[in-house]
């Protein structure tokens, strides 16, 4: 487990509605986006959207949910969108 550092989180679509915020500054020790999302679900009970159905981008690149996070990373959780 790494030490606590600041991570910038951005939500889209249904996630933003569930979390009640479009951006969050988080101080956390979590290793990767998967753990970060779980931690955020703990802090925001409305955030019920299943993690298995998310895409994640770190610093504007798609990455796996298990990619290690570093201080100052910009993490964007993107849910599926299909409407047309």
């Amino acid at each position, binding site marked *: 487990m790494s030490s606590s550092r600041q991570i910038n989180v*951005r939500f*889209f*679509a*249904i996630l933003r509605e569930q979390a009640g915020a*479009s951006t969050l500054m988080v101080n956390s020790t979590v290793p990767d986006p998967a753990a970060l999302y779980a931690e955020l679900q703990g802090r925001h009970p409305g955030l*019920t*959207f*299943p993690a*298995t*159905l998310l*895409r994640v*981008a770190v610093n*504007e*690149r*798609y990455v796996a949910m298990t990619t290690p996070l570093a201080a100052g990373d910009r993490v*964007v959780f*993107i*849910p*599926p*969108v*299909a*409407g*047309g």
Partner: protein
Amino acid sequence: MFELTDRPIDSTALQARLTAPEAGALTVFEGRVRNHHLGQPVTKLEYEAFDDLARLEGEAIVSEAERIYAGAKVLCVHRTGPLQIGEAAVWIGVASAHRQTGFAACRHVIEELKLRLPVWKKEHHPGGAAEWVNCTAEAAARTGANEMFARQAALPEVGAAGQQKLAAARVLVVGVGGLGCPAALYLAGAGIGHLTLVDGSKVEHSNLHRQILFTTAEVGAPKALAAAARLRLHNPAARITSHEGEFTPQNARALVAGQDVVLDCTDNFTSRFLLHDTCLALGVPLVQAAVHRFEGTLDVFRQGAGGCLHCQWLGRTPGDLDLAGNCAGGPVFGPAVGVLGVMQAAETIKLLLGHEGDAPRQTRLVNLLDGSQLIIERSARPDCPVCSRLDQLKAAKPTTVTDTSLFLNAAGVTALGATAQTIYLTEPGEAAPGGRSAVAALDLARLRELAAAGPLVLTCRYGVRSAALARLLRGEGTTNVFTLTQA
């Protein structure tokens, strides 16, 4: 009904044939011989028809108008032989309940006749000179085909050569809804030579706030057909083909093959993956957009660049994603689909002209509520089972479940017998209306149990999530699961 005649048109007698107590409107258009054409004086006209074909084509145009404009009764008569100035050459009458339908159907018939009917006219000028007027030239002259694109061709990035590329291009638009309407309108306006529109649904009142090709007159009309007619008005020189029906594993390859660019304007992941895989296998670039309320995503996919849709959703099935990404998409901000649809048109034109830049390696996230835009860089995942096995994909047969027996109406449900259960699927925070039996849409285990006990009919607020779940369960091998069709 369509008729050819070599005798003078008697408007009063024709009107009498359209008398009906339920018709609150009679709309009549009469096309007459005028004394000038393209600045030249005209003394008389002569019409010659390819008789049998003209009758068939005329009948086809009339019945198409009656299908688009439900309830309209159309009578159309075209003259042949020599006509004097002021005589009626064509007569169209529409009896309908309301004026909107009458005007629209009448307009539809005359515009299609001018483009399609194998009837030629010979103009006689003063002094005895005469010429056959070419239909295509007339269509071009009426719109000023070249002038229509002048301001676009003046762009250095387009030019005369680029404009010719667009005129030679074939583009497929799958889904003629909130995204497809503005996309197709801008593509027709840009001078794309051949557009094919695919949609199996009909226009509803609740579509009109965003589906800008349709008006109240088209409510009830097959979308592909009504949209094609509307686009032909916009650019009569374009070839517009309509395919009334869904995009399915059976027709996917035939529709995509030979296209220069494909636009994904559908509203569910099952269609999105099928379209994506077909384009990837055939090497056709795909411009995909999707919208949730005020937000949208835009992706350009091209074989060999920036990975594929599977790279983004590794391990998730279209069924999983439809459960999550769909019914919640019911409410929609009209300008959001408008902007994303127009962006799809822009990316399509750029691809055709070779100006796509980095677009095939990016996902663009657009938010119309806060005005933000975010670009995510895409790249191929080395462990992607699709990108890395393109040869297998090219040979593979699509396997998506699109069995039409999935859909039942009320009579179909009754026919299942007393043991059948109808279940309303709820979204988080949603209560089932009117005390209906409900199950949370993400509770697959409970739905599997119910399906094991007897025939299971799923329904939900918009009908999208229930169809996705029914497909998912069918895909697992459960045969007695169905979804209730809307209305």
